[in-house]
C-alpha cells in the first residue's frame, strides 16, 4: 500500500519522461526492422541455396524486430496512463494536506487524520471525513501502480522478445556477456559479430552507455548507442541545473557546479548541433563515438564513417580541450575532412578525439606529462578499435596532434605503440622522445618511422618558446621526421618579442598551407 509520504513526494513526471524514452527506443528498433526489410529487398537477385538461407534468416530477424517494436510500443501508453492518474491523485492529496494544515489536523502515513489540540471545534468530524478522502486517494494510487505493473509484466520479457532463448543459448539481456571496458577491440568485435541482429538490438536497448564506450563496436552501432547516452546525460544535467538554479541561496561550490553544468550543456549543444547537420560534400555524416559529462567531459565525433572510409584521421586537441569547448575542435575535423577531399582522398573520416583529461592551463599543467600518461592507453585502444571495425581493405590511418595533443600522441606512440600509418605534430611543445625512432607505429619498421612523422610550426607561434618542455621540437633537423610548411602568421608586437598567440590557432584557417598539407597527409599524398 502506498503511504501518504510516498504519494506526496512522488514525481509522476518520471513516467512521462520514461514513456518518451520507450517511444524513442521502439521507434529506433522499428527503424532497424525497416533497414532489414530494405536489405531483404536488395537480395532478391541472389539465387541459390546461400541466397535462400540469407533471405530466410533476414526475414526471421525482420519479423522478430517488428514484433519487438510492436510490443515495446505498448509500454509508453501504460506509463503515460499511470503518470496521469498519479498526477491527479497527488494533486487531490495536496489539497487534503492543505485543508488539514489549515485546521490543525495531522495526517499519518497510513492516511489516518487526527485532530490536534489546536484544532477548531468540530475538528474530529473533519478529521474523520478527511481520513476517508485520503485513504481513498491512497487506494487509487495503489491501484494505478498495481495495474501499471501488471500491464508492464504482460509486456516483458517474453512478449517483447527479450527472454532468454530456448536451449540455454545466451539471453539477449545477458549483460555479463558484454566485454568489459578496456577489452582488446578485436575481442570486442568478435563478441559483437557473434550476436544475432536481435541480440545486438537488445544490447543497444539495455546498455547504450557501456556499448557506446566500447572500442571494437562498429561506428554505426556505437553512434546509435551514444545518441541515447547523449539524451540521457543532457536530461540529467538539465534536472540538476534546475534544482540548483531554484535554490534561493547557493554556496560557492554550487555556483561553481552551475557554471560547470552550463559549460557542458553548451558542449552537448555543439555536438547535437553537428549531429543534426544534413550531410553534404562539406559536412560528412557524423558518428558519435563517445560522449560523457564526467570530469571535463568527453566528445569523440567522427565526420564520415571510419569503418568504410579509405582515409581515417584522428585529431587530438591540446591544452584547454574539454566537452564545454569542443565546438571549435569539431569544426577542425570538418575542415580537415574537406582538405583531404581536395587532396584527392576518395573517402574520408576525420575524428575529433576529446577522449582524455587535457591540461586546462598553460602554466603549470601543460608542462606536465601526467595528462598524456593518463590518455595513452585510451588513445592506443581507440586506434586499435578503428582497425578492428574497418570493413574491406585496411584504411590509411593518421593521428594528428595539436599543441599538447602532440605530446599525447608522441607519448602514446612511445609507450604503447600507435596503430597508425602516419602521425602529424602541429605546433608541438615536444612529443616525449628525442628522435622519431623513439615512436612506434604498428606495421611501420623503426628505420622507416621518420618518413611517417610529419611536423610543422608557424614562424611566429609562441609554442616555439615552449619546445623542450616535453622533449625537442619534432620540427628540428635532428629529430628525424618530415617537416611541412605552414603560414608564418603575423608577427606580434616587439614587447612580445614578435610572438603572436593567435598564430597558435591559425593552422586550420582557410587557405593556410598547413591545412593543405594536413589534407595531403590524410590523403596519403606528399607534403610541401
Amino acid at each position: 500500500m502506498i503511504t501518504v509520504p510516498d504519494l506526496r513526494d512522488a514525481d509522476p513526471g518520471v513516467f512521462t519522461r520514461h514513456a518518451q524514452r520507450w517511444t524513442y527506443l521502439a521507434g529506433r528498433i522499428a527503424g532497424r526492422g525497416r533497414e532489414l526489410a530494405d536489405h531483404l529487398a536488395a537480395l532478391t537477385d541472389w539465387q541459390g541455396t546461400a541466397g535462400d538461407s540469407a533471405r530466410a534468416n533476414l526475414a526471421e530477424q525482420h519479423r522478430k524486430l517488428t514484433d519487438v517494436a510492436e510490443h515495446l510500443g505498448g509500454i509508453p501508453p501504460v506509463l503515460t496512463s499511470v503518470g496521469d492518474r498519479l498526477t491527479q491523485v497527488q494533486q487531490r492529496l495536496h489539497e487534503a494536506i492543505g485543508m488539514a494544515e489549515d485546521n490543525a489536523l495531522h495526517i499519518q502515513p497510513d492516511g489516518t487524520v487526527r485532530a490536534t489540540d489546536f484544532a477548531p471545534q468540530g475538528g474530529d468530524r473533519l478529521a474523520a471525513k478527511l481520513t476517508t478522502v485520503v485513504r481513498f486517494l491512497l487506494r487509487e494510487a495503489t491501484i494505478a501502480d498495481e495495474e501499471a505493473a501488471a500491464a508492464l509484466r504482460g509486456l516483458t520479457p517474453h512478449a517483447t522478445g527479450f527472454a532468454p532463448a530456448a536451449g540455454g543459448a545466451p539471453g539477449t539481456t545477458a549483460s555479463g556477456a558484454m566485454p568489459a571496458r578496456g577489452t582488446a577491440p578485436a575481442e570486442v568485435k568478435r563478441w559483437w559479430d557473434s550476436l544475432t541482429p536481435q541480440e545486438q538490438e537488445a544490447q543497444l536497448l539495455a546498455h547504450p552507455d557501456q556499448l557506446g564506450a566500447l572500442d571494437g563496436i562498429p561506428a554505426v552501432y556505437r553512434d546509435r548507442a551514444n545518441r541515447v547516452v547523449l539524451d540521457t546525460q543532457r536530461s540529467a544535467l538539465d534536472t540538476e541545473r534546475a534544482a540548483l538554479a531554484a535554490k534561493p541561496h547557493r554556496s560557492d561550490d554550487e555556483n561553481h557546479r552551475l557554471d560547470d553544468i552550463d559549460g557542458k550543456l553548451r558542449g552537448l549543444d555543439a555536438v547535437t548541433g553537428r549531429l543534426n547537420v544534413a550531410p553534404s560534400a562539406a559536412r560528412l555524416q557524423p558518428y558519435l563515438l563517445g560522449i560523457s559529462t564526467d570530469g571535463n567531459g568527453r566528445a569523440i565525433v567522427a565526420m564520415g564513417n571510419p569503418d568504410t572510409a579509405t582515409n581515417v584521421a584522428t585529431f587530438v586537441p591540446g591544452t584547454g580541450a574539454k566537452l564545454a569547448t569542443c565546438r571549435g575542435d569539431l569544426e577542425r575535423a570538418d575542415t580537415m575532412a574537406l582538405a583531404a577531399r581536395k587532396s584527392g582522398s576518395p573517402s574520408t573520416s576525420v575524428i575529433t578525439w576529446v577522449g582524455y583529461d587535457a591540461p586546462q592551463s598553460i602554466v603549470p599543467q601543460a608542462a606536465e606529462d601526467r595528462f598524456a600518461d593518463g590518455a595513452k592507453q585510451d588513445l592506443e585502444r581507440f586506434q586499435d578499435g578503428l582497425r578492428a571495425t574497418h570493413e574491406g581493405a585496411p584504411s590509411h590511418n593518421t593521428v594528428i596532434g595539436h599543441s599538447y595533443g602532440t605530446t599525447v600522441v608522441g607519448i602514446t606512440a612511445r609507450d604503447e605503440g600507435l596503430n597508425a600509418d602516419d602521425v602529424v605534430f602541429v605546433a608541438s611543445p615536444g612529443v616525449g622522445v628525442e628522435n622519431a625512432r623513439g615512436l612506434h607505429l604498428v606495421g611501420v619498421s623503426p628505420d622507416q618511422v621518420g618518413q611517417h612523422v610529419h611536423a610543422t610550426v608557424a614562424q611566429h607561434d609562441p609554442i616555439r618558446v615552449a619546445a623542450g618542455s616535453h622533449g625537442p621540437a619534432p620540427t628540428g633537423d635532428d629529430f628525424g621526421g618530415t617537416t611541412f610548411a605552414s603560414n608564418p602568421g603575423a608577427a606580434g608586437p616587439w614587447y612580445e618579442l614578435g610572438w603572436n598567440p593567435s598564430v597558435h590557432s591559425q593552422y586550420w584557417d582557410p587557405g593556410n598551407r598547413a591545412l593543405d598539407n594536413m589534407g595531403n597527409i590524410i590523403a596519403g599524398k606528399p607534403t610541401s
Partner: protein
Amino acid sequence: MQNTMTQTQAAQRVEEHARRALAVLPRQARPELLIAETTQCDDPTDNGPLGRVIASVEYQVHDLPPAGFGEDFDALRTWWEANDFRVLADERPANPYLWVEHTGDGFRLALKANDLGELYLTGSSPCVWPDGTPAPTE
C-alpha cells in the same frame, strides 16, 4: 584593436574575389559552391583577441579537363598578379596548390587540384569583427 569591415561585408567581398577568379577560367567551367560561411579565427585557449571571424567560400570547379589544369593555374596566376594579388605559394608541380593574397584588403584565394581530376577554389577574408568594431572588454 582596430575597426575592420563587418562580417557581412567580408562575406560579400570574398564572394566577389572568388567570382572574378572563376571568370578567368574557361567558359565551360561549372563552379559548385560547397561552403559559404563564417568561422572563428581564434580559439579560447590562445589568449588572442576573441570574437573575430573569417568569412570563406569553397568552390569545386567541374567540367574542366584535368589535362588543362596546368594552363588554368597559369592563367589565374597571371590574372591575379596583374590585379593586385601577390603569390604566397605556388607549389607546382609537386603539389598543385597556388595561394595568393590581395595586397590591398588582405583577402586570400587558393587554387587546388588533385590526382582524381578535381579542382577547387577557396577564398577567405582576414579576421574581422562581426560588427566591424572590437568586442567590448570587461
